[in-house]
């Protein structure tokens, strides 16, 4: 896995993937902290590992019968949204007028 050191440009790339606006002070701090954490996790390089990734724990997932059942009330769910109208979530305009 190597000892990747995270530079400011890499922090910006990851923040864009994570949809996270960062301030100018946060960027160098995160570069330092993430580099230190990656340096620590690099000890996994020493470990011999099986080829295949494991599946889910035995017995999981548990599925129920595919039958309709009462669900949450739509208005009650929308009441928790920052903005809703006429039974829908409202988002900023996606397509420019």
């Amino acid at each position, binding site marked *: 896995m190597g000892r990747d050191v995270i530079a400011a440009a890499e922090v910006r790339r990851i923040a864009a993937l994570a949809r996270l606006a960062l301030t100018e002070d946060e960027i160098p701090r995160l570069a330092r902290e993430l580099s230190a954490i990656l340096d620590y996790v690099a000890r996994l390089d020493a470990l011999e590992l099986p080829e295949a990734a494991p599946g889910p724990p035995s017995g999981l997932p548990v599925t129920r019968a595919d039958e309709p059942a009462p669900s949450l*009330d739509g208005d009650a769910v929308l009441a928790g*949204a920052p903005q809703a109208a006429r039974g829908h979530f409202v988002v900023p305009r*996606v397509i420019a007028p």
Partner: protein
Amino acid sequence: MSGAPTKTARAIAAAVQTGELSAESSIEQALEAIARRGGLGAFLRVDRDRALAAARAQDRGRAAGRDPGPLGGVPLAIKDNLCTRGLATSCGSRILEGWVPPYDATAVERLAAAGAIVVGKTNCDEFGMGSSNENSAFGPVAHPEDPERVPGGSSGGSAAAVAAGLVPLALGSDTGGSVRQPASFCGIVGLKPTYGRVSRWGLVAFASSLDQVGPLARDVRDAALALELMAGPDGRDATAAAVPVPRGLAALEGDPRGLRIGFLRDLSEREGTEPAVRAGVRSAAEALAAGGAAVEETTLELAEYALPVYALLATAEASSNLARYDGVRFGRRTEGGAGPRGMMEATRGAGFGPEVKRRIMLGTFALSAGYHDAYYGRALRARARLAAELDAQLARYDALLLPTSPGVAFRRGERAGDPLAMYLSDVFTVVASLGGHPAISLPAPRAAGALPVGVQLIGPRFGEPLLLRAALALEERGFAAAGVA
């Protein structure tokens, strides 16, 4: 602390059952205690009116011949990352501030059906990410015995509320130690059930392959009773296993004879474990051996890799789970930038605190193109090896003994600037989390004026009866919270 013995949930329920105590006065006493110790910061919200109304309804029902239930009249505190219908649930985060869930978590619903009365929501590290409760957007929680120290985390408010005697029972969640480590710091009992034992419906997700709901209590039998009442399959959670729930857990006996205990001595005494913690775990091994258990020193070769594996998997899963906070469906929105993407970035940038951002960033990196196999993939495979080693040890032993945390409650601010030092507080708890094994923290006996030390037992998967039997054997030998009646 008052010095007066604090009643267990079972003692309160028994008194309510006979009519010696009304549910209303039980709840009033809890509400008064919560108000008196408001300075702890343990509660984010107290649900006074609804709690009193529920208590009065229970008292009227009892007068009409209805059974108040095995937890009738018991005041219950709920970590603020478990959904409570009609009662705001913030997860200690600005991004969810003011959000009121339209449903109850299954664990909450089942304990309420057994008669427990929710008195309020407890403070926690934001989205369960932290080991000191310093990462709550709504302020820290003080350790009940020393206001300069942390109560542990992330279920710090629940642990402080039980330790201070405000409530006998609280729910927390444990992803990498968030029930056990604060129980250890505060000198009470904290139980993380087997992965799959308790439904996570209504538990706000942090790392879905690790998260479990668990009780914090003043004794082992209260934790056992709460587990029994909330465990079992749930049609709303595909990870609630179809495994029968053991009954009569609170009536178990703590006989150590015939128990096989693996004492992880080398691991327990690794560099960084404080002397008081080493002494506490050694005295647990001695107490079990003196009681007739077969105690052997053993090792867990892969334990040293548990924390790096946890750091990668938990953050990867968190980066995915927390993608849902997009300013559209829940909580707050911050306007900014262009279009939906700009709004999402602004909302998340303003709404998440530093630790949550750090973990989302690390997890996003570990999952990103070009790094996925080297980080996330390797961590998954390392986890499988560690889980297999734990299973092999728990075929040989009924329970493994080790510390809960390498140290006692530390001072607030002491580790705030060093994320790695903070993560090391969980070095012993992440082991059972990665394996999916049940584990419990118990307070070791201590001298007057000394801070609590927790000892941890890990049991076989779905082997809670065996784990609790070993825990009771220790409890009967002085590994018990102070002043419990």
